[in-house]
């Protein structure tokens, strides 16, 4: 499996304190918010800060593309590929 995807899954688990979950439990294409993993808006903000800390990615809350980037692990990996600085 893609190591960047693995890394992002580990980041999600740590930043959002997902008790009892391991990276294998998060399918790369499962929706993160609402139906799917069931994360909420506070998680979105928390994840935004974690992505900024680790990869230097700046996200605008009001930007319509942000919603698209946060769809699943695959879309986050694509974002980090295109905009992220090396961790």
């Amino acid at each position, binding site marked *: 499996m893609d190591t960047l995807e693995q890394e992002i899954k580990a980041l999600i688990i740590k930043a959002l304190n*997902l*008790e*009892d979950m391991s990276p294998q439990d998060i399918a790369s294409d499962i929706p993160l918010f609402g139906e799917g993993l069931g*994360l909420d808006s506070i998680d979105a*903000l*928390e994840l935004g800060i974690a992505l*900024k800390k680790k990869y230097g990615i700046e996200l605008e809350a009001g930007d319509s593309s942000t919603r698209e980037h946060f769809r699943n692990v695959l879309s986050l990996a694509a974002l980090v590929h295109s905009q992220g600085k090396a961790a």
Partner: protein
Amino acid sequence: MPSVAEWDLSVVRWACCQNDDPRELSFVDPLLRRRLSPLARGALHVANACAHDCPSASFVFSSRHGELQRTVDLLSNLAQSEEMSPTLFSLSVPNSAAGIFSIARGDHAPATAIAAGVESFGYGLLEAYLRTQQEPTRPIVYVYADAPAPHPLGQQPGDPEAVFAIGLLIDRAGPIRLRTRICPSDEPGTPMTLQANACRQALEKGVADWTDGHRHWNWTLQ
């Protein structure tokens, strides 16, 4: 000595949780549970132990320090020019345990959170009593929970050694009759203990006293 205030409560049952006592929190969805502090875990455990068979109850939550650890963490973030955690921010308020209990149970009954220094337990109990006067038919879950004030403040006189939580289900039909009396007191130099623990002793043994040197609290089972 004449009392300043005196009131009786009918208690259905009570529960206490401290140190390594197990916390039963399976009634909270895991996605909600992951955000609970050690304090909130103790508070919600005793709340549920009291009210599990009671679908709707007013909730009175009392804590001297509340989620102070989260506030200290947020201030540390600020001091180090780091981004503040939205999760910490949203749960740093004193009524966060009350809010999560309401969400987890799907209960829209009113909830109040109060803090009153070293006498937080006693005045929280007074708040619960006033609730019974306002709405005699609705049961009340009263929960007091505290942890020692975190570094750099450090444990204060009258703080518990570790997380301490006690809950009472108060209802007209309750078989336990608990009387609280507050009297003026002039007992300077009395070492201050955890006020909530005095009430627990009364619930276990029938009578207990507590003072902060200015006021004397007495609990008796009738």
